[in-house]
């Protein structure tokens, strides 16, 4: 049974039709690659699935039921975790505060619970070690390099057991070594039954981990096929429009 | 002889009216020789700030206080504190009757309002509609004047327009605008009675306002009866931009305040209420007042 399904989803921004009648399904434990040229609508699609945008037309199903996801908080509660392309970090907080934002570890009685600073910090250090990232948990995000920021955004998804993780170009800014770690992580997630949608412009990465690839072009889905039945050349042709559909 | 430091606390230092009171104190202090006049108040009309300044002056151990009360109850607390600290206190211009102040120096504000009403009646016994302009809505002395005007006109053919009085918050520019608004909202209005001199403190603004119907003012179709007699106002009256003024004597308030405090300091007895008097000025006698 499909874990997540989109039916005829369209999204308009004023005069721009960012998504045009897009449908697809994702099964539990499936790794789906989402590719397309810049401005093809990939991030818009992710934002619809994670409750930031409401579709102009069409509907979403989660676990077979119609879902109205009105806010990112709701999406999170459903088990949809997202690594946003613009990372969504609060610059004035530390890496560990960002990782735990909205899900802080607390101790105490009744409504007055205090933060467990140490525990959160320790867990953050662990997460960065797991990703082999050169990121310090108690540095302010403001002072971080591009790749360190991305590591924070990725680490965030590791806190709870999600059912589907949407990754919008998670490896764009990170270094060679961590790319391998993230791809490994995706495999481990799949093994735990978690579905992953991976957006990337790096053809080799998509072909290395995904089982299926969806290609978008100017808001429309132009292909949705198993990786095994495709090739980097075909996908490139689909992205650029040299090939109309496949 | 002993020398003393007396503080004069106005409602607000941005009101030109109090400049005259200040000048009075300064001149009298110089004349008396052994007295220093400290003029210190809030810049804008705000009672808590005034209270804090009084408190600071108590800490500074001034030898006497003369206060134009901005809020009776609030000032009462501070006045009593000062008196307990052994500092003689008097009020001027605006009173706090319930407090332990030794004396009030200033205008009888109820009478002041009545005088404005009477001047209007004298000008136009046949009546009509009139509107008032006031200053800060919270100022008790101004409320007394408004009451006074109404009392004097009670039983006459004068009726007050709705929306009167307007509150200019002692803002000169706003007061002129409100005069214009009163006239436009009530084209047949027969009199405008500002209970303080604010709109006329801006002479050309007032002239601009009056100019289009100056003939009506001359023929008393529109009567302009205004409180206060600052020099600019007298000139405007002389030039036909008002029909009558009723004035207080702020300079004298300053002078008498210093004398009264000095008497208190010397242990002499003073009257509890010292009215400085009113001046009624019309075209007939304006030359006596313009210097």
């Amino acid at each position, binding site marked *: 049974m499909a874990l997540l399904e989109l039916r005829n989803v369209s999204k*308009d*921004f*004023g*005069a*721009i*039709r*960012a998504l*045009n009648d897009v449908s697809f399904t994702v099964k539990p434990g499936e790794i789906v690659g989402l590719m397309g040229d810049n401005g093809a609508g990939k991030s818009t699609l992710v934002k619809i699935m994670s409750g930031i945008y*409401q579709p*102009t037309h069409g509907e979403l199903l989660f676990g077979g039921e119609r879902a109205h996801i009105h806010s990112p908080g709701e999406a999170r509660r459903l088990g949809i975790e997202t690594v946003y392309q613009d990372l969504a970090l609060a610059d004035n907080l530390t890496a560990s505060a960002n990782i735990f934002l909205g899900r802080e570890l607390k101790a105490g009685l009744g409504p007055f619970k205090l933060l467990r600073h140490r525990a959160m910090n320790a867990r953050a250090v662990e997460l960065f070690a797991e990703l082999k990232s050169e990121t310090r948990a108690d540095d302010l995000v403001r002072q971080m390099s591009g790749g360190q920021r991305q590591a924070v955004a990725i680490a965030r998804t590791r806190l709870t057991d999600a059912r589907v993780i949407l990754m919008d170009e998670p490896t764009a800014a990170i270094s060679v070594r961590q790319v391998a770690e993230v791809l490994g992580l995706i495999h481990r997630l799949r093994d735990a039954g978690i579905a992953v949608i991976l957006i990337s412009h790096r053809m080799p990465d998509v072909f290395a981990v995904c089982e299926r690839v969806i290609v978008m072009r*100017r*808001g*429309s889905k132009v292909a949705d096929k198993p990786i095994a039945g495709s090739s980097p050349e075909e996908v490139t042709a689909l992205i650029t429009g040299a090939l109309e559909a496949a | 002889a002993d020398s003393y430091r007396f503080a004069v606390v106005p409602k607000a*230092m*941005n*009101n*030109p009216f109090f*400049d005259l009171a*200040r000048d009075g104190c300064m001149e009298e202090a110089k004349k008396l020789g052994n007295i220093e006049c400290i003029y210190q108040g809030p*810049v*804008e009309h705000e009672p808590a700030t005034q209270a804090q300044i009084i408190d600071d002056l108590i800490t500074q151990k001034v030898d006497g206080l003369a206060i134009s009360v901005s809020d009776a109850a609030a000032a009462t607390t501070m006045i009593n504190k000062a008196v307990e600290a052994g500092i003689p206190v008097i009020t001027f211009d605006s009173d706090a009757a319930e407090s332990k102040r030794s004396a009030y120096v200033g205008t009888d504000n109820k009478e002041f309002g009545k005088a404005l009403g009477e001047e209007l009646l004298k000008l136009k016994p046949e009546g009509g509609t009139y509107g008032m302009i006031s200053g800060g*809505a919270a100022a008790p002395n101004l409320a007394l004047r408004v009451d006074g005007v109404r009392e004097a006109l009670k039983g006459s053919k004068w009726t007050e*327009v*709705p*929306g009167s*009085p*307007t*509150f200019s918050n002692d*803002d*000169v*520019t706003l007061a*002129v*605008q*409100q005069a*214009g*608004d*009163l006239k*436009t*909202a009530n*084209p047949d209005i027969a009199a405008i009675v500002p209970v303080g001199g604010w709109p006329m*403190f*801006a*002479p*050309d*603004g007032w*002239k*601009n306002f009056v100019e*289009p119907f100056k003939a009506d003012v001359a023929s008393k179709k529109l009567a302009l009866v205004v409180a206060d007699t600052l020099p*600019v106002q007298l000139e405007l009256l002389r030039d036909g931009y008002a029909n009558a003024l009723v004035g207080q004597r702020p300079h004298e308030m300053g002078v008498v305040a210093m004398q009264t405090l000095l008497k208190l300091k010397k242990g002499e007895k003073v009257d509890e209420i010292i009215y400085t008097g009113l001046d009624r000025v019309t075209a007939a006698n304006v030359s006596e007042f313009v210097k």
Partner: protein
Amino acid sequence: MMVDTVQGFSNVRRSRFWQRGFFASQTAYVLLALVVLIVAMSFASDNFLSPGNVSNIVRNFSFIAIATLGITLVIITGGIDLSVGSTMALSATTTSLTMVGLSAAGFYPFPGSQLILALLAGFGTAAIIGFANGFAIAKLKLSPFVTTLGSLSIVRGLTYVATQGRGTAPTGPDKALFLAITSGQVGGIPVSFLYLVILAVLMWVVLNHTAWGRHVYAIGGNEAAGRLTGVAVDRVKIQVYVLCSLAAGFNGIIISGWLGSAPANLAQAYELTIIAAAVIGGANLAGGVGGASGAIIGCILIEVIRNGLVLARVDPYWQQTLVGCIIVAAVLVDRFRSLRSG
């Protein structure tokens, strides 16, 4: 379905007129609110649209509108200027005092000479204040709020120091000329309104059609980006604060001409009204957004509310309450825009 496309993008339509430019701006929606308000007020009071009252409104709003143009520039760069009210007072005072002083000294080489010097003094004072603000903000990187709150106090204090709290009135041989160029009329139209129109058109051209104007927007959008692309950020900021002070000073001088005097408390507490006018007209305090037309519409709205309530003979105690309500309602209208654009 998508017939009319843009630059060959198959998924991009031409945008409709209400999705573009002025019609898609807060300014347009506030203008709508203003029109509604004017209609409502004209029903509430017959006198509202009488020529006399319209000319009152025109004059009154041009009293703050020139300063609002200036502060709009500052707000577009992401700054704020709380010292405008004080600057109005000090400029007006300096102008008056110079006329008084020159007359007393008997210095009058040619007709108009006292006026020219007095205006130079008034505008010069404003320019100095603006430069000090701009320098502290651009070069010393102080917060615009604290800096201009400081100058609010400093400049007002200096006005009191200069006049000992007394108002000053312009006098001397050039007084008539001074009154003519500040509170006079040309063909029945108040000169202050003409100045406003000229300055607004100028500001529109500069903001939309010069590199300097574009830099003003860029600084408000992303100051760092401006710096990185070689925009002279500091210089533009200083210029903007100087222009804002000059506009405020000009407004102050005009008011003092109309009043025939420059009271020391002239324009006290005007800063909030002026900022509100700019913000209501669509300027965004976060920077990057705003324009001349918005500033003017904001000023008209505020004056129409004030004047209309007086004319409608609303209880003065309630007036203040209603002014607040209508201000909020006017910006609430702008929500329709967001709703429509999804």
